[in-house]
């Protein structure tokens, strides 16, 4: 039984005088306790909007959420605002890409952490500040007693992100959504934060939704990976299968276009032609068709559905002409 169940999620932004934007459509995935699920895709593909929808943080006006989001059996899309507020921070927490925008710049870090503890865990002031210090210690912030008194701008980017994770952990959430938590950070700091998140999943059985554009991050920690393009999931598989033999041309294209540290130099990279802006609406066919090397006639005659791969069990694909696994292996050899 999974903890979070997202089914056929669609999010449409409408603004007067503009065409409606269908930012997310037909997104289905689930996360169980102790599991890490990755959402990967380039900027603008709908990752952040999906996470905001789960958190109930989309604007009430102008954003229409369709489909169902079930958390531990409770339907979130129709949950009253006050109930949602109760869940948020206590059972579901989120870490944002930019730590500065999600911390209050005029309140010391310590007060921000203790406030969460007092509100959601009914602690008194003394207990809360003790717990806050131990949380900061746990996320690897040295000298926590001093840091608690400091303001967000006095911390480095990496420390701010860790403070934010500490706040997210303050309530021992059952579900943690991390939206590009390390994109703004250096690799050495990124490694620290990812290690922290992995520990959290293993030690407390938290369910983790890891949102990123970095395939390397996904390869190291996600049990299953969902690749998104233009608002829809185009491929879903375990990380082992996905990286071993990607079947969707977009996934394969992404993998071929990033240089790998551990591979011999000298070979040319194989970029995906065009840019993510070159799409066609899903209603007219496959949004990736304008950039796809595997495109066939039917790709622009109707939209492909996300269906189980014929060749492999437990691997879903949204593609009319996926990459041949045999051909793939020939390439990798």
């Amino acid at each position: 039984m999974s903890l979070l169940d997202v089914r056929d999620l669609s999010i449409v932004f409408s603004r007067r005088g503009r065409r409606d934007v269908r930012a997310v459509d037909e997104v289905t995935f689930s996360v169980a306790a102790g599991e890490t699920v990755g959402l990967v895709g380039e900027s603008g593909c709908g990752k952040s909007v999906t996470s905001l929808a789960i958190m109930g943080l989309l604007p009430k006006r102008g954003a229409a959420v369709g489909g169902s989001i079930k958390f531990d059996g409770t339907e979130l899309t129709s949950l009253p605002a006050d109930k949602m507020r109760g869940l948020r921070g206590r059972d579901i927490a989120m870490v944002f890409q930019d730590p500065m925008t999600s911390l209050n710049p005029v309140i010391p870090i310590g007060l921000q952490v203790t406030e969460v503890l007092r509100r959601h865990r009914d602690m008194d002031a003394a207990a809360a500040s003790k717990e806050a210090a131990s949380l900061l210690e746990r996320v690897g912030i040295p000298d926590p007693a001093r840091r608690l008194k400091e303001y967000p701008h006095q911390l480095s980017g990496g420390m701010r992100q860790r403070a934010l994770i500490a706040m997210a952990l303050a309530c021992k959430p059952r579900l943690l959504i991390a939206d590009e938590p390390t994109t703004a950070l250096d690799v050495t700091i990124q490694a620290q934060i990812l290690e922290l998140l992995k520990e959290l999943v293993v030690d407390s059985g938290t369910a983790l939704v890891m949102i990123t554009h970095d395939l390397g991050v996904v390869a190291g920690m996600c049990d299953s990976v969902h690749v998104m393009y233009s608002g829809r999931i185009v491929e879903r598989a375990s990380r082992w299968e996905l990286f071993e033999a990607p079947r969707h041309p977009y996934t394969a294209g992404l993998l071929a276009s990033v240089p790998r540290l551990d591979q011999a130099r000298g070979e040319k990279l194989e970029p995906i032609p065009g840019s993510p802006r070159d799409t066609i609406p899903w209603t007219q066919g496959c949004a990736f068709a304008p950039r796809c090397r595997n495109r066939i006639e039917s790709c622009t005659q109707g939209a492909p559905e996300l269906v189980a791969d014929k060749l492999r069990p437990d691997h879903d694909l949204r593609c009319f002409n996926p990459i041949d696994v045999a051909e793939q292996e020939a390439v990798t050899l």
Partner: protein
Amino acid sequence: MSLQVAESAIQQAEHADEAGGGLWREAFRRLVRKPAAIIGAIFVAIFVIVAVFAPLIAPYSPTATDLSQIKGPGHIPGPSSTHWLGLDDLGRDVFSRMIYGARQSLVVGVVSMAFGMVGGIILGLLAGGLGGWVDATIMRFVDMMLAIPGLLFAIGIAAMLGQSLVSVMIAIGVVNIPVFARLLRGQMLAQREADYALAAKSLGVKRSRIILGHVFPNSLSPVIVQGTLTLATAIIEAAGLAFLGLSGADPAIPEWGRMLADTQKFLTSAPQLVFYPGIAIVLSALGFTLLGESLREALDPKNRR
């Protein structure tokens, strides 16, 4: 649907871009989508039309008196079918005076704003463009001017220059110089550090050309927004100075601030006389403010697609 559809979709996307055009055109397109901008523009347009065509619109001369309506000393007739807004204490048609008053107010607003803006741009350009000791000197001077409360400063200048409408306009203009200077200079300092200015430097473009050709034009939009907002405050400040009796204009020539000042003694007996110029000042200032604020949003690069 076929493969060509995909290609044409890309082409369409590219064509949509081509319609883009320059930055100002884009900003204008964003501007006309804002309701606040439209309301502001309507207020401003009414104000300008009334001011320009005052002789055609006003039913009476602003100085003509109609003593037949005055039934005795202290009697101030209210609105009637012949005098829509009634008469003032001297028997002049208030509606006509309001319409002619728009002229004066517009002139005061535009001239004092232009004075302040040109002065501010010159100082800001020198400070932001040359930097170093020029910048330091100008900025100390500007800081000093800013340290004096605006209205007090204007009163001082107006009093020094003697009672006249011109001195009111100069006073208000001078008070606004440091605001513009500071804004432009700050913006230029930021833009000078921008990558495109660095890129021009790395191409060997001359410093004067970088400053005048790149940095200055890219620093102007907040100054223009400020100009629109200043028009609003200038009208109010001019009213304030007139209210204090510093405008010294011919009392026969109507001006909203002066009308407000002259009629305050009838506040209890004929409150409408105070109300009309008051509301006119507020609405025209509001119009410019709405327009200015919308312009600020429209010009903000963050709001670009």
